[in-house]
């Protein structure tokens, strides 16, 4: 029986420093988190792998969710199901992450897909990366020579390309705890539930005080570049104004279309995507408002 599977070697590190040493010495290592993305890419021939660095053994060090000193830290090798079962997403401020959990691929993929892998894959439809954008998250990169933190808004360079150097691994994502009168929402629109990629993804964070928008951050799966990005002009337009239907209508009709360039492909047309972006952003903002006011 002949099975055509691409052949590659696997480097199994003992601990984090072993993995970092190996990465600094060998140029052919490709780090792999859960493998739900990379193994598919290797099998379909998109990525040519000689040796894969299996990061799974580092889970004893890099799988955690910690909330201390006003910062939420999530280890890069925390699986999506661990995030979804944590107390963090029960907090109404992070209800957007609970929205992510409901629509994130399928239960068995959630068991192997990791938070760091979702960010590092740098795919436009990366749900967790999108939520980190609106939570103003940071990505911690570790290398043999030390560590650095990159704001996630500056982390992506292109489709499947990030500012991560070859000898670095994503160790942690973190964000500052948001103020009490704020919340988040995430909406993914697709025809089906399981394995939904989404025609349009929107994530939003808003802080309301006396119905005035104190702070707002909005991110879409794509605004022209093939990676998730924030819509800065729309955010600026909304900031400091009173939350009303008229204000949202103005933002959606006059501001958002100017900074959003959508593409047409086999899944949806640009016009449809733009229209959908407007509808979903409105829904997301209304959802956040109701969450802040104690609704679901």
């Amino acid at each position, binding site marked *: 029986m002949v099975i055509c*599977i691409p*052949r590659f070697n696997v480097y199994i590190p003992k601990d984090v420093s072993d993995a970092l040493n190996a990465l600094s010495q060998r140029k052919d290592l490709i780090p792999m988190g859960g*493998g*739900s993305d990379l*193994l598919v890419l290797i099998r379909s021939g998109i990525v040519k792998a000689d040796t894969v660095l299996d990061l799974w053994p580092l889970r004893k060090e890099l799988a955690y969710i910690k909330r201390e000193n006003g910062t939420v830290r999530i280890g890069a090798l925390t699986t999506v*199901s661990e995030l979804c079962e944590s107390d963090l997403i029960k907090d109404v401020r992070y209800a957007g992450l609970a929205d992510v959990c409901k629509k994130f691929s*399928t*239960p*068995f993929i959630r068991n192997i897909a990791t938070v760091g892998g979702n960010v590092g894959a740098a795919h436009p439809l990366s749900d967790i990366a999108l939520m980190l954008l609106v939570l103003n998250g940071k990505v911690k990169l570790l290398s043999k020579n030390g560590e650095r933190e990159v704001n996630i808004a500056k982390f992506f360079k292109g489709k499947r390309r990030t500012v991560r150097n070859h000898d670095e691994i994503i160790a942690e994502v973190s964000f500052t705890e948001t103020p009490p009168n704020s919340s988040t929402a995430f909406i993914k629109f697709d025809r089906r539930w399981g394995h939904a990629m989404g025609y349009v993804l929107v994530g939003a964070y808003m802080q309301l005080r006396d119905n005035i928008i104190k702070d707002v951050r909005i991110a879409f799966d794509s605004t022209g570049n093939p990676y998730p990005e924030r819509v800065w002009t729309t955010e600026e337009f909304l900031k400091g104004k009173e939350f009303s239907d008229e204000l949202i209508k103005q933002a959606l009709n006059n501001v958002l279309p100017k900074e959003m360039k959508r593409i047409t492909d086999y899944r949806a047309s640009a016009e449809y995507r733009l229209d959908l972006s407007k509808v979903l952003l409105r829904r997301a903002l209304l959802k956040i408002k109701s969450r802040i006011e104690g609704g679901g």
Partner: protein
Amino acid sequence: MSVIPREEWDKYPDIEITLNVNGKDYKVKVKPYERLLDVLRYKLGFTGVKEGCGRGECGACVVLMDGKLVPSCLVLAVRANGSKVLTVEGLAPEGKLHAIQKALLDTYAVQCGFCFPGVILAIKALLDRNPNPTDEEIKDALSGQLCRCGSYLRFIKAVKLAAQYIREGKEYFDESGARG
């Protein structure tokens, strides 16, 4: 298994791993690129693990690894080293049917049956943590299991029936009286 050119024989070394499959320990030599699916199906003979798409989309190859539902086509065999794996063969003792299997038969959900090993294990993973699931919870838990015959609505009935069997303490049934 796959045909490897002679010059590459040494390039990919054999790695010995230990696996506990359905309660029995196995020592098996695997190649680094082999998936848990290849090892279970072709080296150990657990053909209840089906390969559908090979990219984690169809849910036919799922197994319970250390109690967690994982797609065996996306787990490298070396990563499964030392873990406990449950496939559909290990669900009930020889000659018996598990309540989930009985419920699927009772609701006439079986058509071609290719997706069934995956569906059964997905239902087990659901009922292990939630003995009384709602329709929505069942739909979410089975959202990754593709059934091209379209038995989806019967799956929901079957999960509720299986949950009822297990609640009544009837976990195993005789194979002979399976079809009513």
